[in-house]
């Protein structure tokens, strides 16, 4: 296969191909400048920034209360996580206490959001592999159910603005918990259906097995995190290694890649993570305590103490960090995002070089990059 292509003596002229920024498979606006030798990629230069919306600059110019509403756009597929990272940083600087019910609600909505993000990844990944508008109907159907649940508590399908500094915004009704239970009860069957269609499909196996092998040392050198590095067999999940929130009280496993860290392993990691998240949702629902939902009053002139702090959480794409420097006023002095997609995308050239051009989208899809998360 491709390895044979590498060793042939056939010489071709070098060709430079521009891929993007408008390309159906780049999940937005990534531009890749590829230098090709026949079919083989010799050099890759990712050009990012086509969606640079100045989120960090906005953080300096908006009050904290206003900025809370904006940060869902940093990573729109996992808005709960971006809100949570920001809220964590501000809470740790401020030292305010978060009520246990708010902690459990946060974990609950975050795990739901992890599932919805992975479902969208599953659909688009299969589109990248060539299952154009056939398979994606299935994961999107479940995603709609999750989005309806989010809409009921947060008010919108994607831009939640639900997790706030000090707690959460709204206490859901008991009927909402029942709906979540209904979803979690049937979701494992749905994952079985996806797996029946995809996991052992010979075409998918040909496209993914042994493709885009991410070496452990390379991954660590580039600071890759999330399912991408867990596919390579490194057990690094912030929920276990640096537990935050109520994760120490919950019981779950970290799925790891079984082979050498190829595209199929990363696919499998995410599938198994969805099952784990489903368990976590059930646990949160069982242990959900009663009580307050916010430890800080949500007013327009929301202030935190002066100080600086870096908080990181495990988002569906990896370590999502937020570095806040506060000077005690209602605006932050500097907000810096550490986005998992930005760091994971940096490893893309080393994965692509030496591969045929048809593998680009399979590899790019498997590291699950969201472009606003790259560009802010």
């Amino acid at each position: 296969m491709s390895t044979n292509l590498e060793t042939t003596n056939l010489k071709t002229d070098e060709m430079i191909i521009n891929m993007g920024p408008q390309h159906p498979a780049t999940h937005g606006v990534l531009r890749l400048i590829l230098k090709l030798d026949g079919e083989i990629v010799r050099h890759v230069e990712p050009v990012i920034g086509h969606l640079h919306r100045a989120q960090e600059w906005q953080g300096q110019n908006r009050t904290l209360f206003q900025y809370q509403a904006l940060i869902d756009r940093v990573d729109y597929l996992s808005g709960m996580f971006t809100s949570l990272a920001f809220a964590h940083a501000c809470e740790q600087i401020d030292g305010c206490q978060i009520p246990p019910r708010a902690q459990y609600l946060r974990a609950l909505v975050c795990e739901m959001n992890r599932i919805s993000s992975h479902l969208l990844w599953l659909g688009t990944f299969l589109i990248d592999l060539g299952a154009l508008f056939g398979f994606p109907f299935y994961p999107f159907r479940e995603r709609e159910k999750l989005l309806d649940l989010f809409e009921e508590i947060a008010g919108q399908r994607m831009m939640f603005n639900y997790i706030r500094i000090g707690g959460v915004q709204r206490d859901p009704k008991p009927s909402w918990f029942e709906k979540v239970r209904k979803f979690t009860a049937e979701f494992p069957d749905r994952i079985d259906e996806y797996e029946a269609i995809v996991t052992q499909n010979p075409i998918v196996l040909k496209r993914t097995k042994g493709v885009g092998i991410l070496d452990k040392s390379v991954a660590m050198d580039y600071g890759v995190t999330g399912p991408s590095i867990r596919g390579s067999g490194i057990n690094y999940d912030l929920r276990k290694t640096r537990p935050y929130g109520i994760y120490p009280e919950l019981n779950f496993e970290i799925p790891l890649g079984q082979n050498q860290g190829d595209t199929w392993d990363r696919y499998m990691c995410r599938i198994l993570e969805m099952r784990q998240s489903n368990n976590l949702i059930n646990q949160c629902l069982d242990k959900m305590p009663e009580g307050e939902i916010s430890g800080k009053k949500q007013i327009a002139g929301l202030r935190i103490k002066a100080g600086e702090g870096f908080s990181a959480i495990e988002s569906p794409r990896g370590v999502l960090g937020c570095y806040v420097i506060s000077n005690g006023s209602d605006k932050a002095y500097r907000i810096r995002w550490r986005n998992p997609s930005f760091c994971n995308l940096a490893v893309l050239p080393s994965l692509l070089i030496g591969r045929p051009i048809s593998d680009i989208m399979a590899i790019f899809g498997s590291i699950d990059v969201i472009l606003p998360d790259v560009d802010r």
Partner: protein
Amino acid sequence: MSNLLTRAKDSIYQVLRGLKTVAVHSLRIPTTKEYPDTMPPLPPHFRGRLALNVNPETNEHLCISCRQCERVCPDKCIEITAHKSPETNKLELIDFKIDHGLCMFCGLCTEVCPTDCIINTNDFEMADYSREALVYDIRKLTLTQGESSHYFAAKEIALPKPKPAKPVASAPIAPSIAKPVETKTEAKPVETKTEAKPAETKTETKPAETKTEAKPAETDTDTKSTDNESK
């Protein structure tokens, strides 16, 4: 060779397994929501188009021109025009504009509103052919009494207390239900006589000119307005 055969067998089995799953799906209930025929069941806290409430009981405008929503809005998409009435020394609303093309539907304005006047409705069909049409003024924004009472019930907001009586020498203490309508000026009976406006455009009786010469209204305007509602 046998290896190849077992692999082929396995592959065919896996493909058929997938096809079976797909085939079973065709027997299930369709998930498509027939949108233009049936409206989606939206939750009460859905953040759709912004609107201004009136008091569901007395039909008085709830906005007190405190400008908190204007200040908290991250997009600065709200513009309030108000003036201080020289007689009562209170702020009176002249115009309230929201640019829905600029709004990001974050719901912060509804959170800070002290009188629960500005709310997010369940309406999302706002597409229009020009950008200017997306700027809604107070006439387009204000809800009718029926809609307001619907949203007050759906969002489980406590019903507002009627505004305290204005310091009027002739009527020092009046029943609180009858009083609020006094903000409706005497221009109102004139309008109702001439055009017999429908109930939903009732708030048109609060434009700038009429507000400036606001005088404590008599009880007969009160009865007139209730007549208007019954029509």
